[in-house]
């Protein structure tokens, strides 16, 4: 194996200082597998190194919050032992490269985050931002993204009930695809990721591992030549059929008492799932990579650890439950393989072909990931427009027509009619897409949840603090307009390059505004996701902190829709 050169380190996206930390933690030079693991664990995506400091300031607690940020998804208690588990996540970059598969796997990923905690997904939402309709790529991107979201969600049999679609030139080279999933679990039967029980088996279930989405180190491993692209697809193909089976198999196993801990393999697949499980549980893991189900021949440890193949899960079982669990996965025709054991070493040891191919301390790596206090400049306040500067329209009717027919103002029916928004038989008539908030009944009860996703990026751009507040308040209004009580939010912070102080300033401002609104409304943040570096050629997107809110209505027969229902009724305007 080649020695680690500065080029290889740089290819792995680690700065010089970060590599010094690596050497310190290891006490020696890492091998290529170990370096690969550091690089994904410390990536912005997995470590939140630029945003952590600010996210910590968000209010996350309330008596009804069962689990706030930090786990796969947030959980709230809506009474009667019903828990609602939800989260939003971005799949921006993959969707720009390959809109159908990028969006589809985004939906698949967020659903796994929710069902890995024991919930059956009962609603999906999606917040989409594209370049202007005239841009040559827009049509293709819209078409692919919408079809991909539908393709995955429809096949899973989970209704896609709401979302947003907006067009703006700042997204021409950088679209946003934010997917939200809301699930229902038994509050007494929730699953977390903390591994425990020395000697317990670590089990891999789901699809086989291929060479999907492995970044970095192209030069480091000699066997890759001109056909690297062919061998290592940068785009993962989603397989909703397998995910549907995985969902049913996991929920079936969760009805037994076999599972100690479970985690989905999302970004950075086997690496992040195994490290998170071990780190949360304060244990070590010995893993035998020979037992990882593989789709391709001659896969290296590096490839297996960094693969982003979809539709996979990792779990720790109680001893003696292996056969029973295996039978369930076999019934659903999925791979099931015992790939490791929990140890008391606090280290991750990987074996391949009888050799130790990586040996890493877990906590220093997982918990000591870099944290940056990036310099920022607050967005300067702009002077309010003088009312006189805004001309009244000459022709109100023409203006109204222009507004309702503009791409951003027009009905989004053409989008949501491509999503099955009624499957599962609980989307209420008034809660179908097109209203203020979507409403889905809790199966077999009179209770329902109301959901809405909102943000107005140009407000956030003009004034991040105000814009952040407004986004939270808008979901709150949309939810309360149905008669539901807003309970909690998830957020998806889409911003440009955080190493630019003015972008960091937008981020900091938006987080402040969101936090303030959440406190004022008693409406905590229970989960979220950050997507930075959304820019092309130095041109950042409009700051887009998407907020997904969830509320509850106790008697859904009392819910209200937004349509006028009869002639002669009074129209009342309330609020400021």
């Amino acid at each position: 194996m080649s020695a680690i050169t500065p080029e290889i380190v740089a290819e792995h996206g680690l700065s010089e200082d970060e590599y010094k930390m690596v050497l310190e933690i290891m006490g020696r030079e890492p091998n290529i597998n170990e370096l690969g693991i550091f690089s994904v664990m410390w990536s912005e995506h997995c470590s939140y190194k630029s945003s952590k400091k600010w996210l910590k300031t968000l209010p996350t607690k309330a008596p009804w919050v069962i689990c706030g940020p930090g786990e796969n998804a947030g959980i709230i208690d809506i009474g009667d032992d019903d828990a609602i588990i939800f989260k939003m996540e971005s799949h921006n970059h993959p969707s720009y490269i390959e809109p159908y598969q990028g969006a589809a796997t985004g939906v698949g990923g967020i659903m796994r985050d929710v069902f890995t905690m024991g919930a059956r997904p009962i609603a999906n939402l999606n917040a989409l931002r594209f370049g202007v309709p005239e841009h040559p790529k827009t049509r293709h991107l819209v078409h692919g993204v919408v079809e991909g979201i539908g393709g995955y969600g429809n096949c899973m049999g989970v209704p896609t009930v709401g979302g947003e679609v907006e067009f703006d030139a700042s997204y021409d080279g950088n679209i946003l695809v934010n997917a939200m999933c809301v699930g229902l679990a038994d509050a007494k039967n929730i699953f977390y990721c903390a591994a425990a029980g020395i000697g317990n088996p670590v089990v891999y279930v789901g699809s086989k591992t291929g060479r999907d989405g492995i970044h970095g180190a192209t030069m480091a491993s000699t066997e890759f030549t001109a056909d690297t692209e062919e061998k290592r697809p940068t785009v993962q193909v989603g397989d909703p059929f397998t995910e549907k089976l995985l969902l049913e198999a996991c929920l079936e196993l969760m009805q037994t008492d076999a599972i100690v801990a479970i985690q989905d393999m999302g970004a950075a697949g086997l690496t992040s799932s195994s490290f998170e499980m071990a780190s949360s549980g304060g244990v070590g893991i010995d893993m035998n990579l020979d037992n990882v189900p593989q789709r391709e021949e001659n896969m290296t440890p590096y490839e297996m650890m960094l693969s982003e193949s979809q539709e996979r899960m990792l779990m720790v079982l109680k001893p003696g439950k292996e056969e029973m669990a295996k039978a369930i996965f076999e019934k659903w025709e999925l791979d099931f393989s015992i790939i490791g054991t929990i140890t008391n070493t606090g280290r991750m040891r990987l074996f391949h072909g009888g050799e130790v191919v990586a040996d890493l301390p877990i906590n220093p790596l997982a918990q000591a990931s870099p944290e940056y206090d990036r310099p920022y400049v607050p967005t300067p306040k702009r002077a309010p427009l003088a009312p006189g500067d805004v001309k009244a329209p000459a022709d109100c009717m023409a203006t109204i027509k222009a507004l309702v027919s503009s791409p951003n103002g027009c009905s989004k029916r053409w989008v949501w009619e491509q999503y099955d928004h009624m499957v599962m038989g609980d989307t209420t008539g008034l809660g179908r897409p097109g209203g203020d908030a979507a409403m889905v009944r809790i199966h077999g009860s009179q209770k329902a949840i109301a959901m809405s996703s909102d943000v107005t990026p140009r407000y956030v751009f003009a004034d991040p603090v105000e814009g952040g507040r407004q986004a939270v308040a808008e979901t709150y209004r949309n939810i309360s307009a149905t008669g539901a009580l807003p309970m909690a939010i998830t957020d998806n912070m889409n911003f440009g390059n955080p190493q630019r102080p003015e972008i960091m300033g937008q981020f900091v401002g938006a987080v402040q505004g969101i936090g303030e609104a959440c406190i004022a409304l008693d409406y905590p943040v229970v989960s979220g996701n950050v997507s930075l570096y959304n820019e092309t050629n130095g041109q950042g997107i409009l700051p887009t902190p998407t907020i997904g809110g969830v509320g509850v209505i106790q008697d859904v027969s009392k819910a209200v829709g937004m349509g006028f229902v009869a002639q002669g009724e009074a129209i009342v305007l309330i609020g400021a």
Partner: protein
Amino acid sequence: MKACVIVFPASNCDRDMKVALERSLGSPVDMVWHRETDLSGYDLVTIPGGFSYGDYLRCGAMAARSPIMAEVVKHAQRGAPVLGICNGFQVLCESGLLPGVLMRNAHLKFICKDVSLKVENANTIFTSGYSSGEVVTYPVAHHDGNYFTDAETLKAIEGNGQVAFRYVNNPNGSINDIAGVLNKAGNVLGMMPHPERLVDPLLGGIDGKPMFDGLVKSLAA
């Protein structure tokens, strides 16, 4: 009366079907896994919507070849009723129990919305809750609902009164606006629209309910 819902890998309207049937029947409806091989205890067999086997290769093709389908065919040959909705309709066509095929929607897009349907033939065990010519609203939710047959078959099914439902505004390109089709004997019905999604006023209407009420009544008689 005893009814069941067949569950294939990635069926996903199985629960919806069960709930709708139980509402009219007043007694529990069984779920039958696709690897089972005995349907002798059931009066009514239903095949729900969904994406069996991911809709890969052709919608319904792989499900149509699973062990339970041999039993469904026997059940139908005995003259007992079989109802297939959406993916269930696709499975019934692929298995040969119903004529024709369901192709990709003419505009190629998945479509989910309420549509108006004309009940063409109310003299069947499935449609006795309606009157012929009545227009009802059912949701559709499919990618491959574009019904097609060759001219000869079409003539036969039209001539025999095998068209159960027709779209008022064709949403998918189906030949002769056909939305639901019976076998010649009239004991097998396949349809793309989803009556089971409109059996509860809270969900936006109850136009689908007479179908299940009527079915329960005909089978009890």
